[in-house]
């Protein structure tokens, strides 16, 4: 507090100059304000756009610059995919996948349409589910879940392998390739594989003799045994009917006799169809028992 500033109490004039005051008022007028802050920038941008579009040379220049920038980014090593890794697929499926999704490696990550690839691979029969993604190290990872073969379906034009839900897996030429699979036949049999499976389970006691199932008229099943025997099952409750036939067989050796077919289509009126000549033989035996023929 030794020196007292002589300017201490005389402040400088805070008044704005007339022109700065007018400018402030001008800038506060709403239309001009909007014009300056929105209108002029918008006009400038539109003008730049119009100039660039109308001039052919500039337009091309803009386009080439754009594509150059695009390739510069997409071709970065961080975005390239170098190889495909397939998992969970058998060799033949792997081959199929490589055939349907041909990719020239290396390729940019942005050029791969993973969704479309997935749809194409899902279109293959043996593929139940597939997961396609690009791993961080530039590897295209394809994880496949295959369908498990459950049935052989004999059709007019060959043998098809179906999975447990009746969906086509592949076509085979010989039954021997899948000799352990149960055989079904008949038009529309693939829609009723669940029932077929139940019948196969129920027919376990006849396993040695069972040849396969035939779907008749797209509504009911025939069980075909060796020696040309058939068990005609009804449309409703075929398993119950089959169990009854098996029970009869176990009790009275029904199926070892000269029976051509057991007709269970009407549950309450089962019918036996005998082989040709069996009826005559049966009559002869009866007559013999009665002593009329010696």
């Amino acid at each position, binding site marked *: 507090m030794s020196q*007292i500033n002589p300017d201490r*109490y005389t402040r400088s*004039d805070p*008044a*704005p100059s007339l022109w700065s*005051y007018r400018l*402030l008022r001008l800038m506060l007028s709403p239309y001009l304000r909007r014009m300056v802050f929105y209108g002029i920038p918008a006009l400038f941008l539109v003008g730049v756009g119009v100039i660039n579009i109308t001039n052919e040379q500039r337009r091309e220049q803009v386009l080439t610059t754009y594509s150059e920038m695009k390739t510069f980014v997409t071709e970065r090593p961080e975005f390239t995919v170098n190889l495909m890794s397939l998992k969970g697929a058998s060799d033949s499926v792997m081959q199929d996948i490589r055939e349907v999704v041909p990719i020239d490696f290396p390729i940019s990550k942005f050029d791969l349409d993973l969704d479309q690839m997935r749809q194409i691979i899902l279109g293959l029969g043996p593929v139940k589910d597939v997961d396609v993604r690009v791993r961080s190290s530039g590897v295209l990872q394809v994880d496949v879940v295959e369908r498990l073969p459950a049935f052989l379906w004999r059709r007019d034009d060959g043998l098809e392998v179906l999975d447990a839900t009746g969906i086509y897996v592949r076509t085979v030429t010989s039954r021997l390739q899948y000799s352990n699979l149960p055989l079904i036949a008949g038009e529309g049999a693939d829609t009723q594989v669940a029932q077929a499976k139940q019948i196969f389970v129920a027919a376990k006691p006849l396993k040695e003799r069972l040849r396969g199932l035939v779907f008749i008229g797209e509504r009911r099943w025939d069980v075909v045994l060796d020696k040309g025997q058939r068990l005609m099952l009804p449309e409703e409750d075929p398993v119950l009917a089959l169990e009854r036939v098996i029970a009869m067989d176990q009790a009275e050796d029904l199926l070892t006799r000269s029976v051509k077919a057991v007709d269970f289509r009407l549950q309450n009126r089962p019918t036996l169809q005998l082989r040709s000549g069996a009826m005559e033989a049966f009559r002869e035996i009866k007559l013999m028992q009665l002593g009329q023929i010696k």
Partner: protein
Amino acid sequence: MTELYQKQRAMRAMRKAAMQRGVIAVLDVGTTKISCLILRFDGVNLNDEGEGVGSISGHSGFSVIGSATTASRGVGFGEVLSMRESERAIRTALQSAQKLANIRVDHVIACFSGGKPRSYGLAGETTVQNQVVAEQDIARVLSACDVPDYGDGREVLHAQPVNFALDDRSGLADPRGQLGERISTDVHMLTVDEKVIRDLAHCVKRCDLELAGVASSSYASAVSSLVEDEQELGAACIDIGGGSTGVSVFLKKHMIYCDSVRLGGEHITRDVSMGLQVPIASAERIKTINGGLLATGMDDRDMIEVLGETGDWEHDRRLVSRTELIGIMRPRVEEILEEVRSHLDAAGFEHLPSQQIVLTGGSSLIPGLDGLASRILGQQVRLGRPLRIHRLPQAYSGPTCSSIVGLSLFAAHPQDEWWDFEMQSDGYPTRSLKRAVRWFKENW
């Protein structure tokens, strides 16, 4: 009178336009500070114009959106002394208020305390034409008032009809539609120096704004600091400002007397400056921080450091007791109050039913003023602060700002003035038409 009528009507129209735009600035040009508020009107309600008892000029709700105060320069006794200086000060206030409000304002209502206001009471009487009092009857009774010769270079600032009487019934606020034969009115007219208004208008015009109204600041501060029953029953508002002290008397919600004493806080500061031999600025500081009016024994021991800037250390670093300061300030305040007393006496304040006195203005902040004032002015003295208005900054709620707040209220709810009523239609054209009709009737 017609010229005044038109000028004031033009200002009223401008004010109405500003109300329609929704923003208006109010400006108080004082001797120590110039403050400016920017008001935004919300529900503009101009529809009930001319109906019922309500204000003819329309009213609406409003809020403060911008405010600025600056030290005033070139203003003394509430009048513009140096045009350039005060114009710059007004511009400062207007600019910062507009900046704060972020809106451009084109109309301003201003008030000032100077210009030697003088009150006149006018009376007029006339007969009612069609038994029922119509607008035209009011116009006629107003024009029947005998206007005194208030002198050249004076201008009417306010002319408010404060009372209407119909036959023997007096105290009517709005006689329209009532039955009667003779109607008479009392008008309170306030004149000020024309030059003061001109100078102010010029300053405002130089700031690219239009003057949409002028008011006396003693009237404005009374509007904000007198409560309703005080206005109704009779009260005086004493606005002790920087350069002048405004006195206004209210009765029945109308101002019936207005005057100003050309003494104020600056004179106290000058006394302190002279008495203690310190610069004005530090005298102002000592006055506001340590000032008082009633000395006690404690004040003898309360030493105040006086800061001079003469360079003489012994002189600059003196200690003064507070009693000494009070001894300097008190006579001046007493003088101001005595002067106010004499004005009130001249106005016949003692005849009012209630004699409430409200002290406001910056100098009413001196501690002990109410005690001193009650000795000089009478027992019913209180310190007033302005009413709260919507979104008023806290800094503007003190008694220093009662006139700007009152001016905001005045801008929103102006009292009906002479020029708000219908002008008397000149009788001549209708009469000549009648004569023409009669002539036709007689001849055919």
